């Protein structure tokens, strides 16, 4: 029992929490940006895969690490454009289109990998983002080792939380984004373009999702594997509801999920096989389901979420 609590005092546990949470932070921010504008983006799972694959491949082919990040973001934005065009001006079902984008992006990523490496068993590794070397923080007890294990990519995630929060709350653009997810007629009546805002939001949100995938290959695993995304995108969709579409709470939700995942890994080693490991693997997902059951009923969904808008029609 004491051992189970002691985990919480290990710097290693907290470092792992942040590492696991980082791709989720990108994913939830991306999902909430799309949904704030009124578009559900279930392409997220596939966009994660495409971002992971394209960022890693770009670096493998010789681009610098940040170049890989940029490529992943552009690829994400491209899939966002597909989803946006199909769901916004054409008004197709957002569920069906999103799942289609997930299948398309996943398949293209796997196909691209197979074309690039026809006869390779283990994927080649790249030189990933190195751990941060922070001259002053390094020597701070506890905090030093935790941050010392993170990379600059993680800092980007935290920066994105702050930037997105500020943009949504404080800028004219954020105002327009929040309005278009609540009442597109209001946006139209004020002379702004509903289509432009929504497609823009979906593209930017999809770029963020792709960064979540790229983090896994460029900072965590240093290579691309099939099945490595493993439902992270879907978790982000659930965490978006948990976060009530707020960047700050998105960070909190991602960290909570990361902590549970890091905790169950360590719990497995303590119990030493007495309990099947699958039970522990379930824990973070059980948390997601419980959070949804408790919160989704009261959730204050953007009013125009999933409602296509056609100009001049009421």
């Amino acid at each position: 029992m004491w051992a189970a609590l002691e985990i919480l005092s290990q710097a290693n546990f907290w470092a792992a929490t942040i590492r696991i949470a980082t791709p989720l932070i990108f994913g939830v921010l991306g999902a909430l940006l799309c949904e704030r504008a009124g578009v559900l983006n279930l392409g997220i799972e596939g966009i994660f895969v495409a971002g992971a694959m394209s960022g890693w491949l770009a670096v493998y082919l010789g681009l610098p690490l940040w170049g890989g990040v940029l490529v992943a973001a552009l690829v994400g934005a491209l899939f966002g454009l597909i989803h946006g065009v199909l769901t916004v001006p054409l008004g197709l079902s957002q569920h069906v289109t999103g799942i289609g984008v997930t299948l398309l992006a996943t398949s293209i990523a796997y196909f691209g990998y197979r074309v690039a490496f026809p006869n390779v068993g283990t994927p080649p590794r790249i030189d990933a983002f190195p751990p941060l070397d922070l001259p002053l923080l390094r020597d701070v007890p506890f905090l030093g080792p935790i941050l010392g294990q993170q990379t600059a990519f993680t800092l980007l995630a935290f920066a994105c939380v702050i930037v997105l929060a500020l943009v949504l709350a404080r800028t004219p653009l954020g105002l327009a984004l929040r309005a278009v997810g609540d009442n597109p007629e209001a946006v139209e009546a004020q002379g702004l373009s509903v289509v432009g805002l929504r497609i823009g939001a979906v593209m930017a949100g999809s770029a963020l999702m792709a960064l979540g995938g790229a983090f896994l290959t460029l900072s965590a695993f240093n290579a691309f594997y099939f099945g490595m995304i493993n439902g992270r995108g879907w978790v982000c969709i659930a965490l978006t509801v948990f976060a009530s579409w707020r960047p700050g709470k998105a960070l909190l939700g991602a960290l909570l999920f990361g902590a549970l995942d890091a905790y169950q890994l360590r719990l497995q080693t303590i119990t030493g096989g007495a309990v099947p490991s699958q039970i522990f693997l379930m824990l973070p997902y059980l948390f997601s389901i419980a959070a949804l059951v408790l919160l989704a009923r009261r959730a204050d969904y953007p009013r125009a979420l999933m409602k296509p808008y056609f100009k001049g029609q009421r």
Partner: protein
Amino acid sequence: MIALTAPDQPDRPPHETRPLVLSLSGITKRFGSLVANDAIDLDVRAGEIVALLGENGAGKTTLMSILFGHYVADEGTVHIADAAGQLAPLPGGSAEAALRAGIGMVHQHFALAENLTGFENIVLGTVPLWRLGFGKATARAKVARLMKETGLEADLGVPVGRLSVGEQQRIEILKALYRDVRVLILDEPTAVLTPQEADGLAETVKALSKKGLAVIFISHKLHEVLALCERVVVLRGGAKVADRPTAGADRATLAELMVGREIPPRERAPATLGAPVLRLAGVDVGAPGERDRLEGADLELRGGEIIGIAGVSGNGQGALAALVAGLKAPRNGSCEIVGHAATRADPSARIGAGVGRIPEDRHRDGTIGALSVAENYVLETLAASENQRHGLLRRSAIRARAAQAIRDYDIRCPGPEAPIRALSGGNMQKVVLARVLERAPRLILAHQPTRGLDIGATTDVHRRLLAARGRGAGILLISEDLDELFALSDRIAVIHAGHLSPAMDAAGLDTRTVGLMMAGHSAEEAA
């Protein structure tokens, strides 16, 4: 340029000398084979309040949508005065261009983002999107100045969704004025207001027009048009049929212009009271925190009378209607409906007991759009032997009865097999009405029975409700339209914040008293 009408009114103020700010000429818009606007000319001068009058489908909304850039006209031009007063053509199809040219519109269904504050709604779209900040201080000062100048007050610091409808509308108007509009379009602005709020709005509009703002006032409430506007333009069937000063016009002439024929006056015999059909004593419906709830309601409705329930919607009308229709059970108190104690939510038991229901939203709760007219007609009595045998529908019998109803009620539709969603609102309501009245109900729940209907259809609904009253049915009429309530009701009760006032004799009431009670004053305070 088109000459203004009414040269035969030399005693009117010389508004012909005021500068022209808006000129529509030959506006035509077709949707398929339907001509929604047929070569419409309309001139509006600075400081003028023009009423745009017409029934549903007459083309008012289409014309304004063209002006505001939602639609592009097939033919015709729109000219609007620029800052120097010179008329310049307005490019079609762009709300942004209309806004920049100085056209503001207060939509009937407010174009407000409910998750933003009033202030945020006002400045939305007035600052370039890529700017980092708002220039909030300047914007706030301007809004504050506007509020002071116009007397339009609203809480600008909370999300708009939490404000009252009246406040939301004031924000809509401020939103337009913030952009320095020269033409303000008000689309059915009083439909959702209490009479006092409507009076306040009228005062504001008059004050604004004195400052030179041109106002286009869309309404179908004739008394408002006569009180507020100096000129009235009437559309019928997409064409302009009249453009005249309101001076010298009365409600009957305007109504005839709108409908194109004479409106017979409603005839109302004195009430012959029968046995009670609805008795409520201390009835609570809905949880205490809910907005649409009923608390300690007492009411007795007898056969042969109409009790009108006045109130701004959302004050408990929904709970009352749900209770009578059997969609909700009373939480406390006793409720007796046509001689049966109603303790459970059981809609089919209510129908069996003789309750006829005309729901508030005929699309959502009254009909099923994909089913045919005939199927909708028998929807509430599927189990009856004339509609089914051994669990199979008797289709030909149903079709024959529906065809009969179509003839009796003059329902315009391709036939009993046509899907009901293809029908206009008025004809759809006639199907609902026919379904209810066919069973000769003892108690009729009429919840906003004429909402969205034109004058012709409204008169028809009223006539049939009065006929049902004459046959001895008790009618609970829930309405926001005071004209309707006073025209039909024997007694009127007012509902506010879940509390139902005692039913008062309609003959001794006036709209002012009822209006004050709708705003939450007690009967003593209001009298």
